């Protein structure tokens, strides 16, 4: 298939001389916008640390909030090694199940609940948010936190959901009635459910690959 005797330059010529497509100036900004074809994803790379995290990005509510919980976990790769350079985002309803439309996520004022958080993992691959346990968005629905993972080596981010361990028959029924949990093979379902690991603390480890690989989601457009 590949003639290894060709120089890199020759291979390059075949593959990507590829000047960017010649576009009529009048087309720029319209043809590309209108064709509906998505812009491809690229890895976040290793050097986002001075750019994406922001002050108190991990603190959706202050620690002294009466309903504050710790939502935390460790990110592992396919060898079971910790991933020290991931960045995690969460998006969730408030404790009443209401979605926030409040501005101000990047400048948390310690009062407004915006439902969005972002934090890098530390060198031990660990992340931690201070937030509230989301309420059900509809009667009988199972609450969850939407989690997005970006990292060097991830060419495209990963989406998953962190549900909570059922603490009552009603909550168990909510899990059974959920649209996603029952559709996931039983042996993998636990990867979507956080573990109560202390008073007001829930652990949600993320395994990118291999044994216990987290269930990752792809949303239909």
């Amino acid at each position: 298939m590949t003639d290894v005797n060709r120089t890199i330059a020759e291979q390059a010529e075949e593959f990507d001389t590829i000047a960017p497509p010649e576009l009529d100036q009048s087309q720029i900004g319209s043809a590309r916008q209108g064709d509906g074809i998505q812009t491809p994803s690229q890895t976040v790379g290793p050097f986002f640390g001075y750019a994406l995290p922001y002050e108190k990005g991990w603190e959706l509510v202050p620690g002294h909030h009466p309903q504050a919980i710790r939502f935390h976990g460790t990110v592992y790769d396919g060898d079971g090694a910790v991933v020290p350079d991931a960045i995690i985002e969460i998006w969730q309803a408030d404790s009443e199940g209401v979605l926030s439309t409040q501005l101000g996520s990047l400048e948390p004022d310690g009062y407004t609940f915006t439902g969005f958080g972002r934090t890098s993992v530390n060198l031990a691959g660990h992340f931690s948010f201070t937030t509230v346990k989301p309420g059900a968005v509809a009667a009988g629905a199972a609450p969850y936190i939407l989690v997005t993972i970006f990292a060097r080596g991830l060419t495209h981010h990963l989406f998953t959901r962190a549900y909570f361990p059922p603490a009552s028959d009603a909550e168990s029924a909510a899990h059974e009635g959920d649209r996603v949990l029952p559709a996931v093979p039983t042996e993998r379902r636990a990867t979507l459910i956080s573990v109560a690991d202390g008073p007001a603390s829930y652990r949600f480890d993320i395994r990118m690959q291999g044994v216990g690989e987290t269930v990752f989601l792809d949303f239909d457009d």
Partner: protein
Amino acid sequence: MTTLPSQDEITAEIVDVEADARAKVEAGGSPELHPRRDYAPYRSSVLRHPTHELVRVDPEEIERFSPAFGHTDVNPLESDLTIAHSAEPIGERITVSGHVVDGDGRPVRNQLIEMWQANSAGRYVHKRDQHPAPLDPNFTGVGRAITGENGEYSFQTIKPGPYPWRNHINAWRPAHIHFSLFGNAFTQRLITQMYFPADPLFALDPIYQSIADPAARQRLIGQYDHNLSVPEFSLGYRWDIVLTGPKSTWMESEEAHD
């Protein structure tokens, strides 16, 4: 310590994946719009891609909404990376402008767009970047903006330099700017990179080439746009960004607004 592969080994792998993708298209498959998650030429992906199929899910209410950002989050001055310090940064001054739209071409308005980049010497202000190129005391390389009514954005910055990395021997990243975008739904989230026209490193770079379809990856190249160049000040590049979507419920609420 394992020895790093040569560029020729990496290039041969890149060529094979592209041939595989082309064969699939010729057999009637659709072109690969996004990078492969398991893309061995980019060595960091090997242990970091899921091996199970992603579980396809109908977005529910949370996924159909997005965190809201606004002018309380971002100072308008944050879109000019050349004025963050006491003096001008070193480098070729550029203007990068474009529109953010959804899959139907409708503007993604009033949403957050973030970007970050190396300086003109190819060095990041990041403690783990050990590339022995100079830091520029007048350049941090972080910009933010809120998209306008037509989804438009514009950044003033300097052209980033290429930089070496340790994927293989003599690995160099083509010059690029990282972009992070939010849409009207959380499912539209996108992090990507913009490149510059005619970079000789394109064919050699396993991150750019992780998008196996040639037409798809060219969408990451900003176009030189002379009309955007500011006389005696900066060279202009235009780069439009298309997110996924829209989701049906969002369309309904959008129409209800109009």
